């Protein structure tokens, strides 16, 4: 497998990624020799309530995008339900800008299994699946091998390490659908159907996989759990900022000198991350804007980026920490082209179930593509904003919001660029002075 690692940067806080650079990091023996399954062993000495309490104390929030507190999510599962309870790992990783789950899958797959086992103990589950995007085939095979090894060595299956806990786990391949990263659509895909989202409530904690109570979190969220138990929830919370505990993997891409996946404390300054970790904007250029957490997140202009990177601070700044997929844009970035490309993505990935998203993303894609070509009137820019505003909050699932938010941000913050494109097209064939001409359309 290709090496995806860089030299660790002194400003990283290496906790979750601490086994990545060990020789044979993905082998179970390396894992066991380096605290592997120690968190799970700790979990076996704790009651489910104690595990959930420690997670709540840690302020670990979902690392997939929404940032919902993990402990709280697990506490919603009805342990007294007579139905079987399930653990599902969201490894669909398709948010543009995001490439971090891939690192955990490649370099420390047993960590994921450990996190899942702790969840199984916390909710009383005996079955789970890791839903992996179809394009990650090499990682699916890699995880299959890890799972087989775990069974062989008694870390999966019946009476795990004599604990009395049974747990079966397997991979589930996707086949190319961003919407299947949405938790309810993922569950539909797991059941062998089109990845259309479900009406919520009920949430997966009540009605999840195969209509049974289910805990469903991102790969990185499960991966963080062992250290919460090993080092303690308070320790984990103190690494970050109030209500935003721990560390997270940050994917820095775009116009930087050292793109890569870096592990940072929640609360690290965003500009510091770009300038120190990623070596600053490339080619000696100036920073123009940053998309902080995946393409769904409203873009932040350079002057808005001097903020701590945690869920609450980014929320206050009008954006989101999201999936940690940070795309950095320099002064040459074409924001109109960017807006058009982002909408092209959402129009393609729209599941088609609800009208505002299906029609809204398609219509917006048409207008934005046309505006990128300089064809249109200034009123069309207003139409883009109105459409996005009307789509936001009116769709069946958050994909519509994910399309609307970045569009509104780009249009509102970079409107002059849209107008300039229209103006440039209009004057491209300006009539000679003193002559009459018909209106020009390209």
């Amino acid at each position, binding site marked *: 497998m290709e090496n995806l690692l860089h030299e660790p940067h002194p400003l990283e806080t290496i906790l979750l990624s601490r086994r990545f650079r060990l020789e044979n990091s993905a082998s179970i023996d390396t894992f066991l020799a380096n605290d592997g399954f120690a968190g799970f062993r700790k979990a076996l000495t704790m009651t489910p309530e104690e595990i959930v309490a420690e997670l709540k104390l840690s302020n670990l929030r979902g690392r997939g995008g929404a940032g919902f507190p993990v402990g709280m999510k697990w506490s919603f599962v009805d342990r007294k339900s007579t139905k079987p309870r399930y653990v599902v790992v969201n490894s669909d990783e398709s948010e*543009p800008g995001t490439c971090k789950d891939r690192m955990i899958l490649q370099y420390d797959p047993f960590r994921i299994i450990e996190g899942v086992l702790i969840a199984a103990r916390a909710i009383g589950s005996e079955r789970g699946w890791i839903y992996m995007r*179809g394009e990650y085939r090499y990682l699916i095979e890699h995880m299959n091998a890890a799972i087989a090894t775990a069974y062989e060595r008694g870390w999966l299956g019946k009476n795990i390490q004599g604990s009395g806990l049974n747990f079966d786990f397997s991979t*589930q391949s996707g086949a190319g659908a*961003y919407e299947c990263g949405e938790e309810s659509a993922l569950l539909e895909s797991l059941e062998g159907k089109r990845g259309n989202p479900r009406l919520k409530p009920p949430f997966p904690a009540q009605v999840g996989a195969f209509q049974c109570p289910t805990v469903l979190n991102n790969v990185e969220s499960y991966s963080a759990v062992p250290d919460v138990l090993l080092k303690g929830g308070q320790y984990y919370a103190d690494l970050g900022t109030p209500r935003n505990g721990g560390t997270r993997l940050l994917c820095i*891409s775009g*116009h930087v000198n050292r793109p890569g996946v870096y592990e940072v404390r929640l609360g690290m300054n965003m500009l510091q991350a770009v300038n120190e970790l990623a070596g600053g904007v490339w080619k000696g250029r100036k920073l123009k804007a940053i998309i902080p957490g995946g393409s769904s997140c409203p873009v932040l202009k350079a002057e808005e980026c001097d903020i701590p990177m945690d869920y609450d601070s980014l929320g206050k700044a009008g954006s989101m920490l999201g999936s940690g997929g940070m*795309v950095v844009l320099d002064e040459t970035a074409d924001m109109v082209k960017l807006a058009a490309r982002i909408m092209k993505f959402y129009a393609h990935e729209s599941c088609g179930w609800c009208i505002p998203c299906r029609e809204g993303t398609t219509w917006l894609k048409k207008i934005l593509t046309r505006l990128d070509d300089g064809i249109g009137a200034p009123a069309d820019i207003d139409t883009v904003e109105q459409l996005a505003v009307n789509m936001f909050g009116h769709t069946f699932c958050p994909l519509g919001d994910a399309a609307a938010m970045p569009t509104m941000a780009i249009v509102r913050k970079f409107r002059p660029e849209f107008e300039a494109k229209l103006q440039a097209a209009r004057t491209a064939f300006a009539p000679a002075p003193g002559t009459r001409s018909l209106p020009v359309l390209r």
Partner: protein
Amino acid sequence: MTFSPELEARFAKMLENYPPGRQKGALVPMLLYAQDETGSITPELIREIAQRLSIKPLEVDEVVDFYSMLHRRPYGKHHIQICTNIACQTRGGEELWEHACKTLGIGNKEVTPDGLFSLEEVECLGACAWAPALQDGYQYHHHMTIESFDKLVADVRRAEKAQ
């Protein structure tokens, strides 16, 4: 219809992974793994999978068009998927795509006459930190340039000739 022994074994194991009576959960992975061997989702394959899962062929059919990795017509021996989404776009992904189309003389989801290559403009592959990225089948290629693309094509052609 039978598949390779490895795939038959994989299918048998997969069917054990779901709660009793819920084997339809194997549908999407089965279609993808089967497509690797049959080359595309054919009506015959749809009937076969439906039969194995005890569901109607329509229940298989209605899923195929949703998932972008499933296709009803065969692609080239080397299906090159180039990402032009935002992280790759910032580092030359679009130029790479245009170069690929020009070099191979085909467009999106088209196959070269010799059946060796097909192209697809895809969405984010999860390789943003190593952009621009493409996949040749399931194989990732990172830090792509015009030159490394030309080399990839040349290497494939050379290997074909050698056979």
